[in-house]
């Protein structure tokens, strides 16, 4: 057993505290900004009679004006997976709609993260190894440029070039328009074809950070004494590069990877809109357009849960990579 109980408790507590903070912000924001959701809903459904408002007020748990009571009710419902009822798709619960969208976002973020991680780290390792060579200069130069490019614009340009002009990929959506009668293989091929452009746009914009971080860490490691020793022992460059240097440089880069997840999720929200990709981001966008507040709140919470869960997972993997972590 490599985990100490203290480490586990600390990380778990941290994750729960983060979630609690996110949930509380989610509760407070609409109340601080004013406005009565029941009235908004009643007028949006065109049934603005006082009786309807009263009924909806009761249904949303707003009949008791005491914030403490509402807060308790809100947390109680959250723990039971109840995110409220959508205005737009009334009376569908928000959680049903978002759970249908979640797999798309997770697939997008996960594949983009794994690929950008692999590409960024390889280029970072090679760049540091051959510092100043053209590979390094090109990599760093492009990385800095990509840092400055807005996600959604890059996505729009990809659509314009590869979908509109060249017609290599579909302009949007996650699956072919008629999925009935497709063999499982065709289904997968269709999903991949639809996923390539959105994933590419996310990879392009998130690789830069991984590359620069890995390169920096490699440069630090390469200057260490034990690298001098390894070189003196006459190790082959390849094993020197990967078995010695890259292995230690990976540890701090791993933390950076997890912390960047929030950014990738933010990018995915915008990317999904450009590609009409039916994930949480598109649901959020539509909710903003139709003032579907419970949906916006639910989407934020779901993104927070996803990022916190991924961070917790990383915290659990980390001791397996670096045995020193569990010591304190």
């Amino acid at each position, binding site marked *: 057993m490599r985990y100490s109980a203290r480490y586990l408790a600390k990380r778990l507590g941290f994750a729960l505290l983060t979630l609690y903070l996110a949930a509380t912000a989610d509760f407070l*924001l609409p109340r601080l900004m004013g406005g009565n959701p029941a009235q908004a809903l009643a007028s949006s459904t065109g049934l603005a009679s006082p009786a309807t408002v009263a009924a909806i007020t009761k249904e949303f748990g707003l009949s008791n004006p005491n914030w403490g009571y509402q807060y308790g009710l809100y947390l109680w419902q959250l723990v039971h997976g109840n995110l409220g009822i959508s205005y737009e798709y009334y009376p569908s619960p928000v959680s049903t709609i978002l759970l249908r969208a979640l797999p798309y976002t997770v697939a997008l973020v996960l594949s983009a993260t794994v690929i950008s991680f692999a590409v960024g780290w390889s280029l970072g390792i090679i760049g540091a190894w051959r510092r100043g060579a053209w590979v390094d200069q090109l990599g760093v130069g492009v990385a800095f440029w990509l840092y400055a490019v807005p996600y959604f614009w890059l996505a729009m340009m990809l659509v314009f070039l590869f979908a509109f002009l060249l017609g290599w990929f579909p*302009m949007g959506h996650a699956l072919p328009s008629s999925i009935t009668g497709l063999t499982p293989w065709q289904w997968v091929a269709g999903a991949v074809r639809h996923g390539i452009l959105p994933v590419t746009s996310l990879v392009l914009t998130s690789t830069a950070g991984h590359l620069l971080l890995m390169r920096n860490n490699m440069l630090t490691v390469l200057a260490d004494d034990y690298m001098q020793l390894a070189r003196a022992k006459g190790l082959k460059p390849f094993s020197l590069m990967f078995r010695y240097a890259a292995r230690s440089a990976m540890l701090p880069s791993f933390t950076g990877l997890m912390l960047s997840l929030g950014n990738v999720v933010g990018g995915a929200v915008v990317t999904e809109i450009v590609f009409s990709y039916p994930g949480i981001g598109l649901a959020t966008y539509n909710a903003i357009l139709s003032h579907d507040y419970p949906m916006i709140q639910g989407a934020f919470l779901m993104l927070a849960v996803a990022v916190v869960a991924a961070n917790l997972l990383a915290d659990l993997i980390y001791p397996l990579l670096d045995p020193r972590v569990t010591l304190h």
Partner: protein
Amino acid sequence: MRLGEAGPEMSPEARLARGGGWRGWLGRKGWAGVVIIACFALMAFFAHEFVPYSPTATFPAWQPPSAVHWLGTDDYGQDIFSQVVYGSRASLVVGGLAGLLSGVIGTAVGLVAGYLRGLWSEVLMRFVDLMLVIPALALMIIIGAFLPSVGQGAQILIIGALSWLWMARSIRSQVMSERERGYVAAARVVGLSDGEIMVREILPNVMPIVIANLVMVITAAILVQASLNFLGIGNPSTVSWGSMLSLAFTDDAILQGAWWWVVPPGLCIALFAYGFVLLGNDVLDRYARKREG
């Protein structure tokens, strides 16, 4: 002479830079960044001087670039070149002010949490760690969605209030190593208060880190503002690069093949932000080299 600048703490390069005039302040990349930023700043200040048309005047719609309309027109028939030039104002004002606001908060939190040790600074940093995990853009979206209307002032406040977290961490770690140095002990012996030591002794010494972080925060603020405008969280009647792209997207500029509507605003955002990236990296590189000796 202030204590922070006492002899042995100052590297030869810094001394050279002081005597060497403006050339010594930055490297070639840094100056390139400054030139890019200055060009956009001039464009924003003198927009009304050289823009051919009002950004909201209408002409025939969907015109490709021509001698009359250098960058064509959009689906309302508005001149895109004029819009791009005027749009620089929003990026400059919101990006710059939100970045400054973030910079002030980040520097203050970093200084206090790095210099003072104790329960409160610990609590402060744990809070920063918690906030770092929550996706900032998503949080800004829900804040923006619940505000009755989001003007430039609200955008500045929202972006500024949520973009200082990385900066605070970075400055804190630098301040923590700085507080162990001789000049801080000397200042304490002389009897300076904690506040004076933080502001008058440590701050000047970590200034390159502050500037580099500030520049990065401004870069992020420019990009985030564009994203918020793209999402419709902003004032749609203010011309900005983000709102231009938002309109181009919802009105199917891509399907119309109107590249002249999509390419220029995005390139401007990227180039403007790149100017700050160049500047920030140059400052950081010079600081690192100076510290290595």
